[in-house]
């Protein structure tokens, strides 16, 4: 597939502004408003308990200073009640926020995945698969947790600060106002840094995504990595990339080192202020010592919410960066919904015709330039031509994986542009040259073809694909687990599973992309028979280089540079003395051995 210009496109990322990202990040929290409010109320109660603990300690100390036994006891009882309430409240709050995080994250992740599967292929191709995975598994939780935590922190801490401050105000207002001023002013130091910090976060996340893509590539290429002893080279590349990441990380850390210590500076500054100015007030006789002590303890309590508030914006930068990564996916253009608006059912697919269809990948040249042809119902249509001539592209268009840039694809159901891709695809089955299987049992892999396929349907399909006896011969039969992408099976076995998967689907149209390429001769015969059975009464579209596969097609289209140059059946094309014939003859004569048919093959 020609998409040379992918890389230019990758550059057109960050289109999301801060305020936009923030707004959307907040909107992620909206469904959980009820939970937030509960948690905030809890936080409010807990903040009161902080005040009460301070008050009880003040009473205890004052009782000690005043030498009053009853005050001491009541203070102690009071303190114990506060402590119990505090522990209970905190536990409930932890539990609620924990479950909130789990639920909201899971739902966001599912939303992204479903979005991903509905997005246009063209959009998805801009990203490495590891990057997309990272956005679901890492970025989504980071963004969601970020907004959950920050919202609750914001409300909870503001409440707490208000409570504690009003308590302090009741003790001494000038002292309190000064404290307030310090609490507000110092964190502002970080504001100018926040933009730089966010940009650094975005850059770092990108670098991390690139790194993960690199790791995944290497791990999946395990065979080549070993056969070519690539480990040292990959290792050194890994470390090289690390250098770049380290530089970024160092810059982030430098800013954060200052940012995260600002709240602490607030605390120290505040304490100093309380002690010195409060002390001055005591000397002046405007305050008692017990009040300074209570002030100190309350101030100790107030530091936590204040430092969290102060850090809020700084910490939010990372959530914002992660959020933008998530929103980039949720912004992707979607395919049409699966359900038709008027609820009517579609009829048969019938004959499919391409009218002046043009297509190109990315921003590169056109792969198909205005091709027109028909695929007749119940007939076999074959496409031949050199590589890069656009054969596979036609199959991709037929599977509605891409949409034509210009022109129209029509069938008895109407124009393809109006038909939901899901509806269209429910009528086709696809067998590719390199079968793609999923980890899981053999039964599951065949049953992927149709949602409601039962065991007998699966077995029937396997029998038709000529793999039933092989499966039965396995120790666990149909419940045998196959590894990642079916790599524990041989090429022929994989392909026959893929064909069984197509069988079980009972499609109207069969799309075959060189389906017998990986099979040996014995199996190929079997498969050809099976495919013949499958093709009966179905429309078949096949791309092939094997003469045996295309020779019997009703119509053969010969493609070159994205245009159809010849059309007809095998005999008429051979009689025409054109490119098709040249291809057939060239393949027969290009080596000393006129027949390239090999032990396992059947190549032209």
């Amino acid at each position, binding site marked *: 597939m020609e*998409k*040379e210009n992918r890389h230019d496109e990758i550059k057109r990322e960050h289109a999301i502004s801060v305020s936009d990202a923030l707004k959307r990040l907040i909107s992620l929290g909206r469904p959980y408003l009820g939970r937030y409010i509960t948690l905030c109320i809890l936080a409010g109660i807990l903040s009161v308990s902080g005040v009460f603990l301070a008050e*009880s*300690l003040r009473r*205890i*100390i004052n009782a*000690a200073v005043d030498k009053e*036994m009853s005050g001491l006891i009541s203070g*102690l009882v009071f303190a114990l009640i506060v*402590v119990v309430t*505090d522990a209970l409240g*905190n*536990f409930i709050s932890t*539990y609620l926020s*924990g479950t909130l995080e789990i639920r909201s994250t899971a739902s966001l992740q599912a939303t992204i*995945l479903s979005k991903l599967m*509905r997005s246009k*292929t063209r959009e998805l191709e801009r990203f490495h*698969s590891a990057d997309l*995975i990272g956005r679901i*598994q890492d970025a989504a939780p980071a963004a969601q947790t970020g907004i959950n935590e920050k919202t609750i922190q914001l409300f909870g801490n503001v409440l707490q600060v208000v409570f504690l401050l009003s308590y302090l105000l009741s003790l001494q207002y000038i002292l309190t106002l000064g404290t307030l001023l310090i609490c507000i002013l110092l964190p502002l130091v970080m504001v100018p840094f926040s933009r730089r910090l966010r940009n650094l976060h975005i850059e770092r996340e990108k670098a991390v995504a690139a790194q993960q893509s690199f790791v995944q590539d*290497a791990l999946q290429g395990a065979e080549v990595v*070993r*056969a070519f002893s690539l480990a040292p*080279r*990959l*290792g050194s590349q890994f470390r090289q990339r*690390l250098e770049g990441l380290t530089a970024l990380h160092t810059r982030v850390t430098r800013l954060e*080192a200052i940012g995260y*210590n600002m709240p602490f*500076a607030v605390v120290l500054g505040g304490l100093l202020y309380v*002690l*010195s100015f409060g*002390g*001055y007030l005591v*000397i002046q006789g405007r305050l008692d*010592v017990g009040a300074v*002590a209570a002030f*100190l303890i309350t101030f100790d309590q107030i530091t936590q919410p204040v430092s969290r508030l102060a850090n809020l914006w700084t910490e939010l930068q990372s959530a914002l960066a992660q959020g933008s990564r998530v929103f980039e996916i949720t912004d992707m253009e979607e395919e049409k919904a699966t359900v038709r608006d008027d609820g009517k059912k579609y009829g048969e697919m019938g004959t499919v015709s391409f009218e002046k269809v043009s297509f190109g990948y990315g921003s590169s040249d056109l792969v198909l330039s205005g091709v027109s042809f028909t695929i007749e119902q119940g007939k076999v249509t074959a496409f031949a*031509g050199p590589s890069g001539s656009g054969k596979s592209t036609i199959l991709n268009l037929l599977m509605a994986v891409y949409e034509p840039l210009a022109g129209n694809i029509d069938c008895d159901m109407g124009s393809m542009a109006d038909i939901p891709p899901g509806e269209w695809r429910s009528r086709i089955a*696809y067998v590719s*040259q*390199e079968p*793609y299987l999923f980890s*899981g049992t053999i039964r599951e892999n065949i049953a992927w*073809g149709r*949602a409601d396929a039962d065991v007998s349907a699966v077995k029937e399909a396997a029998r038709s694909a000529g793999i039933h006896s092989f499966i039965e011969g396995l*120790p666990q039969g149909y419940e045998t687990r196959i590894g*990642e*992408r079916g790599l*524990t099976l041989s090429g022929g076995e994989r392909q026959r599973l893929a064909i069984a998967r197509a069988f079980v689907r009972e499609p109207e149209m069969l799309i075959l992309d060189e389906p017998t390429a990986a099979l040996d001769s014995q199996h190929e*015969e079997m498969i050809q028979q099976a495919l013949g059975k499958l093709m009966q009464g179905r429309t078949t579209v096949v791309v092939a280089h094997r003469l045996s596969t295309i020779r019997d097609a009703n119509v053969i289209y010969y493609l070159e540079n994205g245009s159809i140059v010849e059309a007809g059946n095998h005999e008429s094309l051979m009689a025409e003395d054109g490119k098709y014939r040249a*291809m057939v003859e060239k393949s*027969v004569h290009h080596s000393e051995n006129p*027949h*390239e048919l*090999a032990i396992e*093959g*059947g190549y*032209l």
Partner: protein
Amino acid sequence: MITDDKVKSPANPSSTVWSAFRRLVGYAGLYRAGFMAAIVLLAAKLVVDIGFATVQKLFIDTITSSDTDALTRVTVICGIACAIIIVCLIFQHYFRFTVHFRMAWDLRSRLFDRSNRLSFQEVQSMHSGDLSSRNNKDVNSAMSMVSSVVYELFYNLLLTLVSFIYLARSDVWIALLALGSGPVVFFCSRFFDRKLRNLSVDIFAREAGLRALLQEVVQGMTVVRAFGMEDAILNRYVKERAELGILQRKRTVLVGLLWQTSAFINNVVMVVCAGMIAYSALGGGMSAGGVLAFVILIGRVQWPFVHMSQTWGAVQEALGASDRVFEILDKETENESGGERAVQREERQKRIERGERQAPYFRNASTGDHNQPALMLKDVHFAHKISADDPQQALFEGLNLQVNAGETVAVVGPSGSGKSTLVRLCCGLYQPDQGSVSLHGVCLRESLDQGRGLATYVPQIPYLFAGTIGDNIAFGTEGKSEEEIRMAAGLAGADDFIMKLPDGYATHIGEHGASLSGGQKQRIAIARAFLREAPLLLLDEATSALDNETESLVQRSLDVLMQKRTTLVIAHRLSTVLDADRILVMEKGWIVEEGTHKSLLEQQGLYAKLYRIQFQESDMPKEAV
């Protein structure tokens, strides 16, 4: 799609916090200065936490003495001290996180190296999504243990100690009371340890499983769409994610209990102490400032225990992650046989101690002994091992094969006869269970890297890496110039199409070479083989569809490649078989026939049968051979 048996309890439950910590902290060796600086600068925090009470006492006593000048003086001094402390803390944060980051990356880079060196069979039995999850996620979680232990546990222990001494100077009994209650807090919470750790291993494994599921879905998007699997996959994801959610909720409850229990016990002790001090103050003899300092100091002795208790919970979770990381690091690599291993690890440890950053892995491929047969398999036994509890039937039971230098040997046979396994054995991707494989006298079991340097393996489906075309060709060789790369590409018939691309050799190809056609990918893989210049060529002929023109281009390149080289080729094309010096016919793990095309046809055996099937169903012009 994701197996349930992946979710299992710790592979190596015997690894303790201490042993895991020691291994992890070993990675600090290279950044000792920064690490030490981060620890030393912690003193600033200690000064704050301890000095706090002193300063308060100082202030309150100054206040009660009503000396305004003294108050100003104390304020100024403390202000300067605070500024210094803040600066120290900024540096502490900086060093701590930079060193942590580097340590995590060193661990990650080791893990990456190790995963690339695991035996191929081992890797095949794992999902690559699981492996990358260990690399991406678990490393960070594991490394967090070092921070937890060093900065939290160690610091809090220190804090307790200093506070205790300070407190004991005033009143030994109350100090002892405060200190004695601390361990109660700590040990009450240990009840949760084992559960937390097991839970976290399960959670990490589940997360890896989800990543693997996503990886297959994203990479197989075309199939997902063509078969309308979207809803089924979403359901599966939601289901598995919900199972993870249940585990996470359990963890939340456990952590919540752990934290609140310790905080509660602590608060109770603090109130009781305050009451006792106040009670003793009733009898006189203690100033108001003294009582206040006491209350705060008791908190200082107490809180560290609470923190330690909570941190310990985090350490248990990190232990779950480190179990998963070390599981890979402890697996044998391809090159290691049992005995060598311990020695190698010792060496590695020494290297780390010496502060060497990177081990010299790459050994120049030596030429081997040319008088020895190019390829020799002696009594090879081999069985695929998919998993430990599911041993597959033996494939080879005493396979012998000798290929002499310069020979071209074609291998044919029905699928499942062991052709691919044979080739993989020849380049050491698989090691025989019994018997030996040697290339030019170099035994693959003894010196894998050297042996491998003598062979070039061209797999059926070319695997390309996301990167430039030039890099992809040069992979597997060291220090090749651009001219040499172009030359190799030219020989492989790839130069023309590469030069037509907008950026030529610097063109970025997508994931798995997505922007190239099948034939182009194949030619790049062949160019790679040309550049490698190894004497033995192991070729799995491509069966995937190439059009005739491309096919003949590829074939011509391969013919050139095979010249002057010893070749073992899994043949799918008749011309390859006809050109071969010798043909091996394989069936069910045995070489059942051997000879030239002609002699094999005369034998009227399997070869003749395979040949006939092919030709009877074909109308291709028959020609006497």
